[in-house]
């Protein structure tokens, strides 16, 4: 194995995406990250590699990663990697990083990716930025991003010209945005939540020319200090926020009567053919289970219609829904930040506004 020194930044080249599989199926976050990684690799003029770990993963699935942008796939095959364990996956990923030396490693911020990423960053002695919502290497592109989305006076601000990965995420409890860099160590690691990056169309030519390198890892049962006894699916059906056409979300504004507020949101969602989402305040209070949460620490959605009921609109929440096509906000407080993100705003008490809104929408639907 090549000698490893995380500070020897010049020795690191290439962009990697950890492509998570569960029960043999590649998770869709992997395609989103490959699409994003492709742009970064193009800007840097380097190779994009997917890393798949598992046991007897369908080779068609592995090859398909080329269709989403990978030039090369390292497929690490071992019965010990069939199901995720921190010890097994961290050892294999760290060994591979130390051997091949990529400059960027992207990992999906799933419950497993958020377990793997920090463990590896600590072992590799490098930085990790969690839950990024935007990534750039090119300074001009980063400036363009700031012009569109920030209050920074870009023309009168100095920017160092380098290709460090600029990792942007909501910070300070979601009240500000921060761009983080990891200038002295490699690889630069970041996690990204599912749904944040867009998957580019599948490209068959890419699939046909991808290079697959199958690797048998130096991993033994003694390396793994946990034993997975069982993996069970929840009996309750999870809400599909990311795939929904319409999302009706409730916030702290329902606190006067959470049950009634949620019932009204469900009725409106039913009338519009959508599902119910929630702000963090609502899931923290256990008024709805956490799979309903929209926001930086929940799901990122871009539905055709997003309805925000009694949600003030902290950056934390906006990060998860501001790219929705049409945003309708109902809030008692006329100066709530949500009205700045909204296409249409109604100032009023959701308990009073909703019954009328549901009635009128149902009447129109009935007439259609």
């Amino acid at each position, binding site marked *: 194995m090549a000698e490893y020194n995380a500070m020897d930044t010049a020795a690191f080249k290439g962009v990697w995406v950890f492509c998570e599989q569960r029960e043999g199926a590649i998770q869709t976050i992997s395609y989103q990250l490959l699409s994003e990684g492709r742009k970064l690799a193009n800007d840097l003029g380097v190779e994009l590699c997917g890393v798949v770990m598992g046991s007897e993963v369908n080779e068609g699935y592995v090859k398909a990663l080329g269709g989403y942008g990978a030039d090369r796939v390292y497929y690490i095959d071992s019965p010990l990697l069939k199901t995720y364990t921190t010890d097994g996956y961290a050892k294999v990923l760290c060994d591979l990083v130390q051997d091949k030396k990529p400059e960027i490693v992207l990992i999906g911020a799933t419950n497993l990716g958020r377990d793997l990423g920090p463990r590896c960053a600590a072992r590799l002695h490098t*930085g990790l930025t969690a839950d990024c919502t935007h990534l750039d290497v090119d300074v001009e592109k980063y400036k363009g991003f700031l012009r569109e989305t920030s209050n920074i006076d870009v023309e009168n601000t100095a920017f160092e010209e380098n290709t460090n990965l600029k990792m942007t995420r909501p910070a300070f409890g979601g009240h500000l945005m921060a761009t983080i860099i990891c200038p002295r160590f490699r690889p630069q690691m970041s996690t990204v939540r599912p749904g944040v990056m867009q998957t580019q169309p599948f490209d068959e030519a890419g699939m046909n020319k991808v290079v697959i390198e199958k690797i048998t890892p130096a991993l033994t049962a003694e390396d793994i200090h946990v034993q997975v006894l069982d*993996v069970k699916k929840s009996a309750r059906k999870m809400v599909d926020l990311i795939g929904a056409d319409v999302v009706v979300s409730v916030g702290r504004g329902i606190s006067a009567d959470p049950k009634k507020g949620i019932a009204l949101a469900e009725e409106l969602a039913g009338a519009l053919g959508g599902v119910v989402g929630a702000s963090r305040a609502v899931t923290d209070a256990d008024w709805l289970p956490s799979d309903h949460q929209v926001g930086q620490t929940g799901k990122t959605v871009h539905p055709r219609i997003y309805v925000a009921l009694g949600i003030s609109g902290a950056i934390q929440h906006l990060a998860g829904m501001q790219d929705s096509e049409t945003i309708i906000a109902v809030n008692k407080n006329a100066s709530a930040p949500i009205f700045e993100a909204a296409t249409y705003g109604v100032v009023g008490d959701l308990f009073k506004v909703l019954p009328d809104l549901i009635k*009128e929408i149902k009447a129109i639907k009935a007439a259609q």
Partner: protein
Amino acid sequence: MKAIVCVKQVPDTQGKVAVKPDGTMDRAAMATITNPDDLNAVEAALQLKEETGCEVIVVTMGPPPAEGMLRELMARGADRGVLVSGREFGGSDTFATSQILAAAVNKIGVGPEDIVFCGRQAIDGDTAQVGPQIAEKLHMPQVTYVTEIQKKADGLVVKRMLEDGYMEMKVQTPCLLTCIKELNQPRYMSVPGIFECYAKPLDIFDYNALKDDPLIETDTIGLKGSPTNVYKSFAPPVKGAGMMVESVSQLVGILNDKHLI
């Protein structure tokens, strides 16, 4: 047997957030609370104490006023506290923070049956990185997103939450667990606990107390030892507000005209 719980005092970001002119958060101007997930970690340790009689030690890194939080946690039932505090530790990112906390846990001492508890993530940063990074520095197995813990003769059986279910696993001790709100309902301080908490021992670990640990080097802690730096921080641009509508009928009319419903 010991249960060592790493906790953090955080600004109450649910309340009013104060921002300094340079765009960073004005922590001094904001109310502080114990990080919510950390209360679940403390509760898990206290339940383990009820079951096994183990000692519960709460550890935090922060400025001297964080002692108040440790006293509150001792009023809930923790046996002693450790405040890790020093100028040298300031400006640490998650990597550097985990170096320091791991050194503090080493100084407390980890026995074969011991468990380190953390909350999954803190509400000011939401990274969920410090727990796994401490586990790596201590060379112990970790389980994150823990929703259930059973103590067995030869280790623990725990459930960890997945997006669509859970994983049940057996883990050897010593180990580190990160806890989520589904794990338990944190107890309140008790009246006798409040009376006793100021008599319980509280150690302060400063730079000198930890400097002999190999994890503590000038280039692995504090701002200088942090691999990540803030490059820019900013607020979103002031956008023109959307169209405010006067009535539900007007809104429904527009939505209908635009074929949105």
